[in-house]
């Protein structure tokens, strides 16, 4: 109880000391404000990008393996021109994978092209027209239909002229109206809209579902030249529950090598891609940005800490006589020590809090304008406040300790 009372008393002394020198307090905490702002702003930005990227990757399927002609990352050992001669994955290979692969939950085939979609006088350019096989919705989590329905097995097998369109296409072609049941022109052919996808928003990885039209593969095959080198097909295989991507890749490698009749000495003529390759590709850039923020912020905090230490020494010097009176009235050394330490921590915490408030204000101002949500996470707030408090403790300890060790007689005599 006594300790609590002493702490409250020290806090009151420290608070009134800060209030007496408002301008000096504000100027001395600016260094900490800039430091905390630099470090936590960079961490907040990076965390927000990573969260956004993770969401995009989850939409693509973190447990989905993409069998393609081209890999998503290249190695120096394997020259790019060798990839040119590789065959594209085919529907027949999908059928065999579905039969043979035990570790797969679902598999689908797809290929895409870009085209303009029209309805009467309205049109939407650069639409990602994607041909899909029946289990596409089971493999890709981004297929969430808000209006209408998914393509039926009968429509898939017969190659019916039906389509599911993204929300931006629906809004562009049918502003304020329901798109389901209307006939639009895709790749020059009349196509019935049977469903509209849920709005997804911009994706950092590109290829947002909002500007995508899904058609049965047997229908789209009749509309485009499949020998066109720009048409790149893929087989997507989703891992069964409890199966790791590595296990699935291992099984798929065996199956694909068997299907393509590759001898043990021959290289794979297919690429098995996974979404983690995309996120790991960004990691070095994130690390570099974080290090820059840390270096700038670290030095700002260091300078800020020295500023606080300086102001605390001045504060001790100014109040030497007061310390002498307090000690002569029975104040213990630890009481004086606590008084100045609390003052330094409060000063530093205020600086950190200002820095965090500036970041929070920026996150509110920026909003979604960068194509992602900037979030000041609780862990970054805790980190910012902890750094501030500890910098205050380090900066204020020596002046506080010096004050606590003063001789009351000499201190009272002080004429600063």
């Amino acid at each position, binding site marked *: 109880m006594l300790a609590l009372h002493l702490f409250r008393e020290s806090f009151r002394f420290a608070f009134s000391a800060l209030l007496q020198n408002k301008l000096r307090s504000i100027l001395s905490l600016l260094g900490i404000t800039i430091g905390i702002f630099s*470090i936590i702003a960079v961490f907040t930005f990076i965390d927000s990008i990573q969260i956004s990227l993770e969401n995009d990757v989850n939409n693509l399927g973190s447990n989905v393996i993409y069998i393609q002609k081209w890999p998503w990352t290249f190695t120096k050992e394997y020259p790019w021109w060798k990839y040119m001669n590789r065959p594209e994955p085919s529907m027949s290979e999908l059928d065999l994978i579905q039969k043979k692969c035990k570790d797969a939950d679902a598999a689908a085939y797809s290929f895409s092209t870009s085209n303009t979609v029209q309805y009467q006088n309205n049109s939407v350019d650069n639409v990602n027209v994607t041909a899909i096989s029946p289990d596409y919705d089971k493999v890709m989590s981004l297929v969430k239909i808000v209006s209408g329905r998914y393509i039926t097995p009968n429509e898939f097998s017969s190659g019916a002229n039906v389509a599911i369109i993204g929300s931006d296409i629906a809004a562009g072609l049918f502003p304020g109206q329901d798109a389901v049941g209307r006939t639009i022109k895709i790749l020059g052919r009349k196509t019935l809209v049977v469903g509209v996808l849920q709005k997804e928003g911009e994706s950092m990885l590109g290829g947002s579902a909002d500007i995508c039209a899904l058609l049965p593969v047997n229908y789209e095959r009749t509309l485009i030249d499949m020998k066109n080198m720009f048409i790149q097909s893929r087989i997507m295989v989703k891992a069964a529950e409890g199966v790791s991507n590595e296990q699935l890749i291992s099984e798929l490698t065996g199956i694909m090598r068997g299907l393509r009749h590759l001898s043990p000495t021959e290289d794979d003529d297919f690429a098995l891609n996974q979404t983690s390759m995309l996120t790991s590709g960004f990691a070095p850039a994130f690390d570099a940005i974080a290090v820059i923020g840390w270096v700038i912020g670290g030095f700002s905090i260091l300078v800020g800490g020295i500023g606080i230490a300086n102001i605390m020494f001045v504060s001790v010097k100014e109040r030497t006589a007061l310390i002498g009176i307090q000690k002569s009235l029975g104040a213990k*050394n630890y009481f004086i020590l606590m008084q100045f330490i609390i003052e330094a921590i409060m000063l530093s915490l205020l600086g950190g809090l200002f820095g965090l408030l500036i970041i929070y204000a920026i996150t509110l101002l920026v909003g979604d304008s960068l194509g992602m949500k900037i979030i000041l996470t609780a862990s970054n707030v*805790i980190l910012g406040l902890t750094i501030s408090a*500890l910098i205050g403790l380090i900066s204020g300890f020596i002046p506080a300790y*010096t004050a606590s060790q003063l001789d009351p007689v000499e201190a009272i005599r002080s004429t600063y």
Partner: protein
Amino acid sequence: MVGFYKKRHIILSILCIIGWIMVVLNFLDAFSPSVKKLGQFYPALYSLVMCMQFIAFVGIWYMKRWGVELFIASYFAETILFVFMNTVSYTSPTFVLSVIFIIVLLVFYRKMDVNL
């Protein structure tokens, strides 16, 4: 300054200056991206340990026993933290230097003041 002050040996002065430089550099390292990656609370815990070491060196500078005691406690706290962070290395310069520091400090421990 109040009371009787024990004379500080030159070795302890050098040790304190080296210690403070190490602590400041390590403190900056505490909130580096690499430490942050290890877990949400590691930067806070690591900087707290660094803070303890800084205060310990202040105590040693003033020839106080609590400085040595705090340094040893912070050393063990740091080692435990490194074990959890899976970055413990018994041959690293920091680890070896800390052991040397503790040995030197224990030599001078009896000559130090028991008060705050």
